[in-house]
């Protein structure tokens, strides 16, 4: 999912990229074909099929062929629609959070931490709220790791405190304080009723409340249904989505540890944002 080279990609979120204009491809260049399915809360009838076509038309499918209509229970009909859209996709308009830091090996990461922090980097991780899906955060933190990469516990210069599942925000803030965390890593997998967004906002607000701006630990959230462009909106420093590997996270943390919040190289062995232990 991520670029295999170890150099940062050019063109991050806000820079224009030289783009391509493309359309969906069914079996011929430019045919614009897509497949759509949905349920409408109406009994099956010709009108229902027309309604399905109308929805597809509103989505820009024209022609839209209702190829399957199945009555379900009482008052619901499921549809499969095929058709052509004329929307153009302009890849130069796509905003993605490209990796804007170099990918490091664990060795390089350890060296960088040692050199610039002169102590271990402290990471506190948890699933907050009622979320008990720990596999994702464990994949990042536990030695075992993910996709063939070892987790953060494997890094000699990183101290990992994994609080596990269903940790409340106050507990998390407390632990971050106690451990003098440089970074707090939070996982959110359940997204029904936007639980992941609500919990993340609650968490970032609590940290803003509990810490002076300059000494707040780096806040990182991750989970399969996050949009990586939402960091600012959620009040966190970085968002990671599905397929994230531990190496990416470690590299990001090291980059921020050695370059500070503004991305400029840190001149001293300070903690990530501003000195907590010593003056910078």
């Amino acid at each position: 999912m991520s670029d295999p080279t170890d150099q940062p990609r050019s063109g991050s979120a806000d820079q224009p990229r030289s783009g391509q204009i493309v359309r969906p491809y069914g079996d011929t260049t430019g045919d614009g074909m897509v497949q759509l399915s949905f349920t409408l809360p109406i009994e099956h009838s010709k009108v229902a099929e027309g309604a399905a076509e109308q929805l597809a038309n509103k989505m820009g499918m024209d022609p839209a062929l209702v190829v399957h209509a199945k009555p379900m229970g009482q008052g619901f009909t499921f549809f499969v629609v095929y058709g052509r859209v004329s929307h153009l996709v302009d890849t130069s308009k796509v905003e993605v959070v490209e990796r804007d830091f170099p990918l490091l090996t664990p060795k390089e990461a350890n060296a960088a931490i040692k050199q610039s922090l002169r102590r271990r980097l402290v990471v506190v991780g948890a699933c907050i709220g009622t979320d008990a899906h720990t596999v994702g955060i464990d994949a990042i933190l536990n030695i075992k790791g993910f996709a063939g990469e070892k987790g953060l516990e494997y890094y000699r210069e990183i101290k990992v405190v994994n609080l596990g599942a269903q940790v409340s925000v106050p507990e998390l803030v407390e632990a971050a304080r106690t451990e003098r965390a440089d970074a707090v890593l939070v996982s959110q997998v359940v997204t029904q009723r936007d639980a992941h967004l609500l919990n993340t906002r609650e968490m970032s607000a609590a940290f803003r409340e509990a810490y002076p701006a300059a000494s707040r630990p780096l806040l990182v959230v991750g989970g399969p249904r996050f949009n990586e462009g939402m960091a600012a909106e959620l009040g966190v420093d970085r968002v990671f989505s599905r397929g994230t590997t531990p190496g990416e996270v470690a590299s990001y943390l090291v980059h921020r540890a050695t370059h500070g919040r503004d991305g400029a190289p840190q001149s001293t062995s300070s903690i990530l944002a501003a000195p907590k232990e010593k003056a910078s």
Partner: protein
Amino acid sequence: MTTTSRLGIEATDVRRARTLASEVGQPIVDLARQHTTVSVERATLRLAGLAGADPDGTPWVNRLADVVRADTGLEHGVALPVWDAMVRGEAEDLMTLAQKAAAGSVTFRLPEGQDAVAARAAARSSVGAGIARVDRQRAAREQMIATVGDAPRKPWIYLIVATGDIHEDIPQAQAAAREGADVIAVIRSTGQSLLDFVPEGATREGFAGTYATQENFRLMRAALDETSRELGRYVRLTNYASGLCMPEIAALAGLERLDMMLNDSMYGILFRDINPIRTFVDQRFSRQVHARAGIIINTGEDNYLTTADAVEAAHTVTTSQLLNEFFAKEAGLEDWQLGLGHAFEIDPEVPDSFRLELAHAMLARELFPDAPLKWMPPTRHMTGDIFRGYLLDGFFNLVGALTGQGILLVGMMTEAVVTPWISDRDLALQNVRYVMNAAGRLHEDFHPAPDGFIADRARHVLGEAIGLLEQIRDDTDESGDPPLLAAIADGTFGLMKRPADKGRGLDGVARKAPGYYNPATEVLDGENLDGES
């Protein structure tokens, strides 16, 4: 070979595995009998009819039990202090007593002598009424099945609803039943398992599930009764007797005629970090209630495979099934009530994955021939590729058909995406129906060679399970805990270390004092209870 095993399994190995499970389980049973928990006590009050909550939403059973505990401690049970107060005329009913207790206008004591005899009698009669209601519900279920009819075939088709809103759940459950579901499970909101109280009333918000409450149970059961009559077959209802309030939820399930309950002997310990002793005590009580109520339990072995590798950890499923069976039988459950869990969770990229799944499923079928095994669909290796997911679910259904599963949890193509949509359920049922109709009797043509890949694998897994049980039996710790507790503390299961003196809910556990009395356990333990009372 002296058996008729299709897998060439020796009867002596099976016996050996069961003996080991009982050696490992019995010390835990003894431990459970020596303890009580806040939730066991509250469940007792619930059986006596105490319901409702204060204006903040704290149930009256919690308010009352907390005060009693503060006044007399937990180790004697709440029954004697509570019914002593009733006999003393502190209130005309339990609700009033709870309100007065909450207001601080009643003090509890531990009655002695004649007072104790009177309190005990009052408690027995009051709780007995609740147990009688449980019995009536069991009879009502049997009656209704006799009248409207039962699910027409095995496996029972098990579908979940999980909108978070009981009033959305109901029409969805009814629709699912009409489309062919034999069992409806209402998934609980995330986090309920860690609440040390049972929420009250009809609830309309939950995350990824709906709160388990008495009123929600009642509403859903009533709706499904209606649908059962409409369809001419009894549609079963399932919920979770799991988490910190396991005993209370079991009691509510018995009172409101739920038909099956998720109820595992170690799930709470391993996956919710609930204290091991709390869990084993709560679990024994809840299973006794289930046994009495004619409720089928569903165990949670599938959960191991969502974090551990389904090939490497196959034997942990077998081990857990054997333990669950032991604990269930000890609590009075019969074979037909044992929905032992297992799951189709092998990475589909593994060569011969389908044959491995078959081997595991056939092993479970042979070990527990009379249990209605609960067969769980792929979840972990489901991705956003809904087409691939639909296919995997089809092959999962095929294993179900080939191995005579009792309860088939229907897999959803959107497993990795959302909690199921109405169309996901419909498509999923269509998948099950195709497989059962087209290949439901394929097992007649299917005879793995006794020395072939499948039989070899099944024997191998059984061997590993026996090895693991031996290892557990021989485990020890400094404080001399039962070996299973020591093993759990070591991280034997799922690599999670859960020491006996840690975990949630520990403060709700008490070692029974000599005078401990609980009218519910008295009835449920039946003849075995002399030791305690």
